[in-house]
């Protein structure tokens, strides 16, 4: 009578036809479960579009007008490009970072607060799949907002793409990193103050100081050294390299940091979920 056949009937012979069939059913069930989380997250993004899509678009437009058109014209060129062309990748990446993080932290904490996270916890979906579902939701919003900001940027300047693969890889990895970061924040958060603390007091300063608006080569040596401890610098630099073909740091090293962050954060999220931190008593 159960909808999802058990992974293994007690006494089923390992490797038998019955067990292979059950494994296939389990894969199908997991795929449906993952799709359900992603559809639910996407529906949430679209249902509250006034909170999820409109604010970042307004913010990005103001940045382009003020820093790009008004102030940027007086700054002159940076690395052979206009200031607007230089900061456009940074602004796109900033919106991806903020929204990937913000979606997961608010959605997962909201589910904890409203207790409907229990719908997922009692279901047969494994922890890693629940993490993946929320991360995919965060990526969806981050990339959607990033795309809208890119379109807005095209109203102000021409965007030259030097290495398309680098652009795509950098934005995807960054989105995953910050979606996972939002998940960790939401797991530990006990109230709404704690889900705004990290974005306000840690994420925003790190993003602003991560080379979105300037090249760290403009800074004194000690400040360059400090900046290199900021992981966002590597993400912004790699993304900018994809557009302009120039970067403040080694692009290979940037991708190594992003990949390592994804692996470590994903493992941490799954471990926290399995342990029940913040979700189970």
């Amino acid at each position, binding site marked *: 009578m159960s909808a999802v056949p*058990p992974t293994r009937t007690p006494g089923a012979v390992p490797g038998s036809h019955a067990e292979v069939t059950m494994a296939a059913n389990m894969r199908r069930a997991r795929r449906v*479960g993952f799709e*359900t989380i992603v559809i639910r997250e996407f529906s949430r993004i679209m249902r509250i579009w006034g909170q999820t899509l409109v604010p970042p678009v307004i913010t990005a437009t103001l940045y382009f007008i003020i820093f790009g058109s008004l102030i940027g014209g007086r700054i002159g060129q940076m690395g052979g490009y206009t200031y607007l062309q230089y900061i456009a990748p940074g602004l796109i990446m900033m919106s991806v970072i903020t929204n990937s993080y913000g979606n997961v932290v608010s959605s997962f904490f909201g589910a904890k607060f409203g207790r409907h996270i229990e719908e997922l916890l*009692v*279901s047969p979906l494994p922890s890693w799949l629940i993490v993946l579902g929320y991360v995919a939701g965060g990526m969806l919003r981050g990339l959607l907002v990033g795309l809208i900001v890119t379109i807005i940027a095209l109203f102000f300047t021409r965007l030259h793409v030097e290495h398309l693969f680098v652009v795509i890889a950098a934005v995807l990895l960054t989105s995953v990193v910050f979606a996972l970061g939002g998940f960790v924040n939401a797991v530990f958060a006990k109230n709404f103050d704690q889900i705004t603390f990290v974005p306000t007091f840690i994420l925003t300063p790190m993003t602003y100081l991560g080379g979105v608006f300037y090249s760290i080569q403009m800074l004194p040596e000690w400040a360059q050294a400090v900046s290199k401890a900021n992981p966002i610098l590597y993400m912004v630099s790699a993304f900018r390299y994809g557009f302009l073909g120039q970067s403040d740091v080694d692009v290979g090293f940037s991708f190594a940091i992003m990949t390592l962050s994804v692996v470590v954060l994903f493992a941490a999220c799954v471990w926290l979920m399995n342990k029940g931190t913040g979700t189970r008593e």
Partner: protein
Amino acid sequence: MKALSLRQLCKTYNNGVQALKGIDLDVEEGDFFALLGPNGAGKSTAIGIVSSLVNKSSGTVTVFGHSIDTELEAAKSCLGVVPQEINFNQFEKLSTILLNQAGFYGIPRPVARERMEYWLNQLQLWDKRETISRSLSGGMKRRLMIARALIHEPQLLILDEPTAGVDIEVRRSMWEFLRRINEQGTTIILTTHYLEEAENLCRHIAIIDEGRIIENDRMSTVLRKLHTETFVLNLRGPLRGTLSLPGYRLTAPDETTLEVEVNKEQNLNEIFVALSAAGGEVVSMRNKSNRLEELFMRLVEGRDVGSGQPTAPPAAQAGA
């Protein structure tokens, strides 16, 4: 096959509270099982552990032969849970809540739609399917949680006080519904504070108190352990003579009501004979409290139950 098996299940919370102190419990497939206990006895903790919402400290849990330690996904697939408190997204429509829950159990959308229609109809919520769940009444929210727990057609359904706070009409319709799905093969475990509910519905009962099982047997066997019952007799008018009933504990709340405590060695005939002799005419009679309620109170209060020792016979008092 055992639908649920708990062995030496223990839970100590971080604050040091020992909620479960080594529980052993078996629920057979197809049973309708009552898990009773006073507030804070450990019922919800036990249910929380079985449904993976609470981490156990030690012990084992198997659901239809699947251990939650080694085959958690399979164990969860067999299980549907109706929690004590509302835990659905109150900003979502009923249809969305059910379709999502079906999806979490791997049920493809077309099948999920059919099941949603079936269960919402069964629970008289189909007309509300496009309503935002926040606007439902308390009884409807309870029924929605039952529909959600059944959307993947679990073999074992656990209901944690499903009728708390709902009116008697809704409660009775829920009883009928639960009886029906139990007859169709779903094993049900019920916790409730309405002991009449447990007595009416359940075939087996376990009483948990201070983290330990203090009673676990067939409902009929447990009820037989009740040594005394108190009956309330309503009289047509005041007694005309003196009532003499040696060995019976009598009280008279007013001149036309008589409460009499009857133990296993006594019988009602003697009471009626004595009442007739005193010129009393009984127009109706009922149990003062539900039998299970009486037993429950005696067990959790640590009073003597079924020990074979009759209560000391007080001198008969004259009624009225």
